[in-house]
């Protein structure tokens, strides 16, 4: 069945609500408005205001309230409109959700799912366009997912809900209208594993989320030039699945990490460091990175495009690693 990414998230939420009475949704405009990305349209009528809870503009309180409700036996799914707003809730995500289990000597798990939109590309300017998932991936105690496909939009959410620990799901805002296949019933997804989206032999492109599609386009362009690129979708940004990308890099002997976050201290930096630590002697070239320019993402279209990783930059980065032919 061909559906949109938005519809896949919606179905995953719908199925969770229908299946498990402990599941409820909470966030700004998730109810009467239908969700700022229209993911939860119609839910209020179907499931009622107790389970589809419109919140005030209080990210800190409603995310923290999700932590408390999770401790109290529920399975809350909290929607934060966009990643920049999640900074208002950072204290609760970091100081409570992430730390509680270890800090309490293992007494309390926090089965909380937090969803938010991330990424640029819609001229929403600096305060609605950043990719901060790499930041969150720094924090032990939470798990970070970045579904890039329709299948994963459904499957990773279902897996996150089955997980006893706090899981943050970053949905790239450009993906909501993308169409893809979803099996009926949808296949189960292993949220601990990265996935090879395209097999190749000359170079490994390691990416996630919205950048997966640019990496795949770059692989097409490279194929036209006789270069075979393998494309790996990380899917889970914490804990990283080292084995999948290391195995690939050991075969292709070259790696380019594509990450919409800023380069300094980025997820790309972490992946690159792990390759250096664990596969250094298998490399034929230094690991390369294609990241966003280190600026607040600007409004004007040409500037926004210039700030973000583009197919042409990925292709150029790959070619720079290969001996000239």
């Amino acid at each position, binding site marked *: 069945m061909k559906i949109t990414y938005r519809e896949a998230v919606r179905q995953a939420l719908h199925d969770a609500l229908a299946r498990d009475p402990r599941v409820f949704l909470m966030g700004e405009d998730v109810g009467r408005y239908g969700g700022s990305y229209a993911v939860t349209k119609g839910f209020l009528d179907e499931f009622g205001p107790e389970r589809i809870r419109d919140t005030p503009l209080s990210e800190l*309180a409603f995310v923290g309230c999700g932590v*408390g*409700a999770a401790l109290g036996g529920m399975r809350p799914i909290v929607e934060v409109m966009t990643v920049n707003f999640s900074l208002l809730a950072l204290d609760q995500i970091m100081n409570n959700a992430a730390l509680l289990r270890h800090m309490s*000597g293992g007494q*309390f798990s926090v089965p909380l799912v937090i969803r938010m939109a991330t990424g640029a590309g819609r001229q929403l300017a600096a305060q609605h366009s950043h990719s901060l998932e790499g930041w969150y991936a720094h924090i032990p105690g939470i*798990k970070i997912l970045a579904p890039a496909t329709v299948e994963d939009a459904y499957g990773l959410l279902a897996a996150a809900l089955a997980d006893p620990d706090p899981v943050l799901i970053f949905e790239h805002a450009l993906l909501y209208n993308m169409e893809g296949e979803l099996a009926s019933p949808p296949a189960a997804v292993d949220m601990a594993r990265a996935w090879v989206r395209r097999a190749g032999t000359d170079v490994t492109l390691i990416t996630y989320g919205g950048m997966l599609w640019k990496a795949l386009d770059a692989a097409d362009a490279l194929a036209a030039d006789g270069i075979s690129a393998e494309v790996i979708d990380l899917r889970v940004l914490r804990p990283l699945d080292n084995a999948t990308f290391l195995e690939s890099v050991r075969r292709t002997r070259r790696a380019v990490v594509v990450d919409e976050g800023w380069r300094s201290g980025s997820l790309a930096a972490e992946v690159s460091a792990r390759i250096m630590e664990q596969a250094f002697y298998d490399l034929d070239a230094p690991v390369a990175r294609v990241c966003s320019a280190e600026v607040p993402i600007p409004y004007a279209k040409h500037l926004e495009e210039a700030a973000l990783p583009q197919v042409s930059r990925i292709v150029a980065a790959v070619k720079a690693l290969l001996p000239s032919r």
Partner: protein
Amino acid sequence: MSDVPVPYERDYALTLLRHMLRIRRFEEKCAELYGQQKIRGFLHLYIGEEAVAAGAIPVLKPDDALVCTYREHGHALVRGIAMTALMAEMYGKREGCSRGRGGSMHIYDARTRFYGGNAIVGGGLPMTVGLALADRLQGIRRVTAGFFGEGAMAEGVFHESMNLAALWKLPVLFCCENNLYAMGTRLERSESQTDLTVKAASFGVPVRKVDGMDVVAVHEAAKEAVAFVRERQSPLFVEFQTYRFRAHSMFDPDLYRDKAEIEEWKQRGPLHTFTDRLKAQGLMTEDDFQRLDGEVNAEVAAAVAFAEQGSWEPIADLTRDVYTPP
């Protein structure tokens, strides 16, 4: 000292006294052990404020929930966390209630629904609201009590949490322990509105103001407040006016307040005023007090021995419980 007669039978009154005495003697020993470097890190003593925890917490039922602050030894003791496990936690031993990972500021106990211990001022408040929401959604009629200092009321999270609890009419008992100082900053130097109940009432939540130095006043107010929240399943705010006799933490030279002010508040000390009242009413003799004090001191000594004999968590277990084991 209140001249209102203590309205309790002897045993009931002595139980309240015992709660306060356990907190006082436990913490005096902690301060001593801190000097001996047996306890490290931050140590925030509750001495002077005992009447609040001792008077309020026994009113809660065993399946109610509590969320407290980093000054929570007293709450933990009154709630029923064993003094041995608490002292072992102060030592950082594996037998501690948080396996030695938390220390003084992060006391947890699933059995008594004691959700910390939170070292971020106001950090426990939204969790308090969420625990109450979980009860509401599961159709369980319980109370969640959140303790916090007046300093937390300057944080945005206080306002967000009060708003949410009031908006959704959740069964939360907000217990503000106003000891007048947010670390070294006195109330009027940090709040434009120094009547804290006015701030709380602006959310449409009923408020109470209670003498937090008088365990009888606290206990009676708590009975009314907890019953209110339990019956109506909606929030209530109580300000307990109290004072800490010791510095903010063991690192605090306490230079920001008058010695005379401290002495004045000590005149109202919750332990000796209650003891005096019980004696004056003939509910207790000096011998009774000495016997009780002896029992409490023996309990403290046993807790210290337990902590001393405790073990260190193996370093191999360092990363255990970052995530739930599969």
